[in-house]
């Protein structure tokens, strides 16, 4: 290889494959392939798309073609669903390697995972399962987060779960557990406001006091989604984090309370089942964008920091 070619090759290996779109203050939606034709002809490119990392872990094919196309025009958020960070057993190194390859390939604006687990022994349970909050699980989860962050060489945002049961063995609250994880690992947070509402309803606690105890200054992304209603053994309301409908009014209200306090944060509307036509999902994101824009000039977070 001649000198120029070597130089160019070296430059190409460090150069970005995609434009560095800013995700600050934007609302976005989950990327669904049935919406792709509508998205590609949409002239309004304001917003972002979030993808479930596992759907893009094949070697090639239409998923990568679609994501490459989207990533050229929009910031992308990479959302891992099954790293099992909250699991009792060591992380799956093969899976971690695949995750890193996606981060390297698509240069996402945000990278996130869940405070939950889905694999035990060799079985993958395809759900976000709960864990007790104890010093032992705290140490284990912190190690897992460290391991992921070292592998991908950037911090992740950790998402608060929606839960239906409690572990009597827990010795600390979820918000305390999350605060300690942030302190130990330097990770950021993904605040799922629907999960806050679902869990608070299911556990007979207050969503507002959860938010008051949540370290909002570390939140790098917000999730909004729809939920469904069932009942528990005692006949009381049990909410299911179903992602199959519009965002509930109560969740919009909580979202606005968060944004008033923190200023605009990238916000995603999730809709993963009974997926509507693109204009309906786009309208949900537009509603979130309107709230973000409304509070864009009141950087309350800055004022709060200055007054400390």
């Amino acid at each position, binding site marked *: 290889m001649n000198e120029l070619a070597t130089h160019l090759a070296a430059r190409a290996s460090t150069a970005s494959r995609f434009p560095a779109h800013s995700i600050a203050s934007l609302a976005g939606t989950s990327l669904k392939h049935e919406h792709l034709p509508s998205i590609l002809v949409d002239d309004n490119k304001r917003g972002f798309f979030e993808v479930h990392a596992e759907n893009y872990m094949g070697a090639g094919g239409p998923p990568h073609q679609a994501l490459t196309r989207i990533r050229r025009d929009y910031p992308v958020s990479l959302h891992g669903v099954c790293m099992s960070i909250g699991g009792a057993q060591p992380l799956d190194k093969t899976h971690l390697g695949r995750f890193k390859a996606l981060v390297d390939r698509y240069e996402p604006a945000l990278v996130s995972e869940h405070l939950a687990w889905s694999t035990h022994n060799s079985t993958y349970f395809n759900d976000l399962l709960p864990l007790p909050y104890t010093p032992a699980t705290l140490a284990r989860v912190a190690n897992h987060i460290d391991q992921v962050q070292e592998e991908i060489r950037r911090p992740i945002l950790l998402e608060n779960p929606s839960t239906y049961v409690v572990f009597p063995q827990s010795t600390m609250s979820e918000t305390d557990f999350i605060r300690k994880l942030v302190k130990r690992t330097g990770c950021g947070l993904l605040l799922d406001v629907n999960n806050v509402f679902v869990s608070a309803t*299911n556990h007979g606690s207050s969503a507002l006091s959860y938010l008051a105890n949540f370290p909002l200054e570390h939140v790098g992304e917000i999730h909004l989604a729809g939920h469904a209603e069932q009942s528990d053994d005692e006949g009381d309301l049990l909410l299911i984090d179903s992602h199959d409908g519009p965002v509930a009014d109560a969740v919009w209200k909580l979202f606005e309370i968060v944004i008033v306090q923190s200023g605009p944060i990238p916000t995603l509307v999730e809709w993963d089942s009974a997926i509507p036509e693109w204009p309906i999902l786009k309208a949900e994101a537009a509603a979130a964008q309107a709230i973000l824009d409304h509070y864009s000039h009141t950087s309350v977070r800055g004022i709060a920091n200055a007054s400390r």
Partner: protein
Amino acid sequence: MHPVEHQLYSLKDRLGYAADFTPALLDPDRAPPAVISGPNGKTAGKRYNVYRNNVTVGLINALAATFPATKRITGEDFFRAMARFHVRATPPTSPLLFEYGYDFPDFIERYEYAQDMPWLADVARIERAWLDSYHAADEKPLTPQALATILPEQLVDATLTPHPSARILRSRFPAVSIFAANRSEGPVGRIQSSEPEDALIIRPGSEVIVRHLPPGGAVFISHLMAGETLGISAAAALNDYPDFDLSVNITGMIEAGVFTTASHGD
């Protein structure tokens, strides 16, 4: 007990929540785990059922998404009942759901209530191969011009590299016709044939294509994909199918994009 051992033991004990939580997830006859409850002493029965339901329904949905023609043939209720048995007996071992369902066609073949549809398992095998092809690595297929650069006298010793998305599925039934009729949205006409059909599943660009191969085509391409020379592969096809047409098969497989590179043996 040595202090370190003691520490390890108690850590393991305190991290036992996953081992406690999982056994009843796929087994409706088991009681919910004792390590959980509802808030303020409420019971966890229906609450734990949310997780059971998420796991089971989520995996049934994953199979339904991978095997749409199979589902269309059996109908929704039949398919979901069949899938539920399979999900409980054989849950996934990979977090990538597009890698789930490799054992499902064999399960269908043994499934008591599907015995009057002996071709159903082969339709499911085509669908499983379809998804492999969909996610396979992207590569440019071999052009007819590239093959033409090999001298005629070298052709018999030439070998070809298969495209990552190429799959062959042989059936004793008209599985390709049944697959094709049920994979699309349109009305399903009566399938008259009862002849065996071999399928080529391939994705040279962004669309997965399922082709019904001519006689001997599956033997010929399978030998080539295994690295045999053109000469040996053609002889094997001719041996099994005396009416094997070499030029039709070569033209067809190059046109379909089954191979990516050719090398002449020397």
